[in-house]
């Protein structure tokens, strides 16, 4: 397998592929430039409902998957109508359509005293502290103006952009002091500011999440290691006492165990222990005591010795209790 991988590691095809790809990208870069504007799939399609004096727009903003609500109200006059407007009609070099995530609105206010000012409040939890409101008037140069909206924080993370418009003023698109105000504009957020900001936050967010997981794993690892060490210590044979093995050890152990399988394993262990003890005692009775040579102290013999000594220790303890 490794040889196969190694045989694939010639960089020539990769370099060739990269060259072709980049050449084609350069060729198509003009096409990309042409499509930098808003894609039709992402164009917000607002629907409007009247809520008493206010009008509420519901729409899925650009670069969002869920819908938001934007409420419109006025301080002076009557809010006659609010409708959506395609950005293409107001596209000018001085603004980037991608900055207007919720598209444009045409706000009509009626019954305003002639030449008077009215305050239009646009509220949503979609707005941020940096959201601005820009107005459009095709008859003005430049057509787009930052309306210096008063960006206020409300309850439930809602922010309100307050815009003051004068009847017949530069932002009243009908241009006449006739008691009717028509404002074209929309909330504006910096597309690149948002993209860059969220990029850093989310990249470091991944570090944060995985760091938290790492700390959790390190802590649980230490706990497990401690538990395992404790278990190992408990499993190690303690020094055997000099008392004799209990005579009725087998009977007592058989009473302790419940299942037939356990019982048979205990019987086998008992037989092995008995055989080991017999060999041990026989060895002691010879003129020259048998001793295990180093080479014979393999894990199997060591385990047998440990088990026999543990059994003797347990039996002696039981007797004491």
């Amino acid at each position, binding site marked *: 397998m490794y040889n196969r*991988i190694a045989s694939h590691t010639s960089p020539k095809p990769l370099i060739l592929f990269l060259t072709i790809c980049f050449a084609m990208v350069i060729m198509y870069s003009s096409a990309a430039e042409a499509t*930098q504007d808003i894609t039709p799939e992402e164009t917000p399609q607002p629907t409007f409902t009247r809520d008493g004096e206010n009008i509420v727009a519901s729409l899925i903003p650009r670069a969002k998957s869920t819908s938001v609500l934007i409420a419109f109200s006025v301080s002076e006059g009557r809010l006659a109508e609010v409708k959506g407007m395609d950005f293409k009609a107001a596209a000018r070099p001085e603004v980037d359509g991608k900055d207007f995530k919720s598209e444009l609105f045409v706000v009509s206010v009626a019954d305003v005293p002639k030449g008077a000012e009215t305050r239009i409040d646009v509220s949503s939890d979609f707005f941020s502290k940096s959201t601005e409101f820009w107005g459009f008037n095709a008859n003005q140069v430049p057509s787009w103006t930052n309306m210096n909206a008063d960006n206020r924080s409300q309850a439930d993370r809602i922010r309100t952009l307050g815009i003051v418009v004068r009847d017949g003023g530069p932002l009243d698109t009908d241009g006449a002091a006739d008691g009717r105000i028509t404002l074209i504009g929309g909330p504006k957020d910096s597309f690149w500011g948002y993209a860059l900001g969220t990029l850093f936050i989310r*990249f470091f967010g991944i570090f944060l*999440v995985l*760091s938290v997981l*790492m700390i959790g*794993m390190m802590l649980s690892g230490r706990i497990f290691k401690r538990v395992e060490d404790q278990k190992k210590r408990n499993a190690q044979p303690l020094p055997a006492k000099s008392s004799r093995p209990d005579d009725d050890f087998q009977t007592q152990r058989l009473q302790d165990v419940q299942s037939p399988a356990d019982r048979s394993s205990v019987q086998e262990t008992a037989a092995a222990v008995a055989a080991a003890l017999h060999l041990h005692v026989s060895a002691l009775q010879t003129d020259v005591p048998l001793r295990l040579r180093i080479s014979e102290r393999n894990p199997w013999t060591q385990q047998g010795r440990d088990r026999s000594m543990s059994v003797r220790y347990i039996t002696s303890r039981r007797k004491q209790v």
Partner: protein
Amino acid sequence: MTWEQVLELIKSILITQTGVPNLAIKEVVMIGIAFFFLYLAVAKEYEPLLLVPIGFGIFLVNFPLAPLMGYSEHGYPELIRAFYKYGVEWEIIPPMIFLGLGAMTDFGPLIANPKTLIVGAGAQLGVFVTYLGTLFFGFTLKEAASVAIIGGADGPTTIYLTAKLAPQLLGANALAAYSYMAMVPLIQPPIMRLMTTVEQRRIKMRQLRPVSPREKLLFPLVATFLIVLLIPAVAPLMGMFMFGNFMRECGVVKRLSDTAQNAMMNIITILLGLSVGATMKADVFLSYKPLLVFTLGLFDFVICTFGGILTVHVMNRFLKTKMNPLIGSAGVSAVPMAARVSQVEGLRADSDNWLIMHAMGPNLAGVIGSAAAAGMFIAMFN
């Protein structure tokens, strides 16, 4: 019936009931592309499990008048459209793939060395750099996110995120992700050698501690608790991934675990591959964006590899026991191919340097990291 009527009938049948007169050049091109991917899968064995169904899906769907990806007169989805609608569009298949992957995964190397999680996070660098770069080429924010996740080298995550954010790019993104995953042994070694010295490549890492079965059992619960609490949007992927792993480690549902690893995984791989391939109709695929997806995807892979190795270099400045920087490249996910590449490069530098188990840590961290990145993107658009 006159001869004229017979000829008229034959003409009508030819036009309305056979594909021959409706076959356009662009469809022939797409069939050629399908053959290319089938060739890669069959002759070169590049990710054959996915590229065979994807290639065949592209092949099938580009025949004119074939009732596969449309809707019937009564509004019922046609065969592959039904797979796509209920499997991909409803976001069922990618989490199910994660369930199977979880059941196949042994998190032992990651649990034994949790520090490698940071490497998995660092290897997501390419995802975010590509996200920004993609925006310069006229992609929308959602499209950019779906292209950027290709660098995570995680097929199901790419499909899940793309189906959610930019379904029009599903075919191109999935194909780019699986193609580059297959080309990991080709893409990564030059970058690995460029970013490390021979001495660094020879660093031997301490043997990993043994991980107890209880620790392995607890891991999916702890990981799910922490990750889903911090990024709820990733719950469908991470939840299924960890559920699959819990089934494996608990040991009392061997039948379920076995089904998740084998039968279920195989079935959904077929459905997923065909569905994804079938999204690549000539009208959708033959435009500049899919081409850019392939270029940016490669760039993404390169930066992710760079990010993983760079993270190990940075970590080594603070660690007493140094890590071999070659394991950083495994942070791009692509399990277990990326870990194998680290192993091969390690052996090249020192024939006694076995890195595979050490590289599996960042490799698994990469899976979690790329799923977390996907969750971050989903949360961003909600």
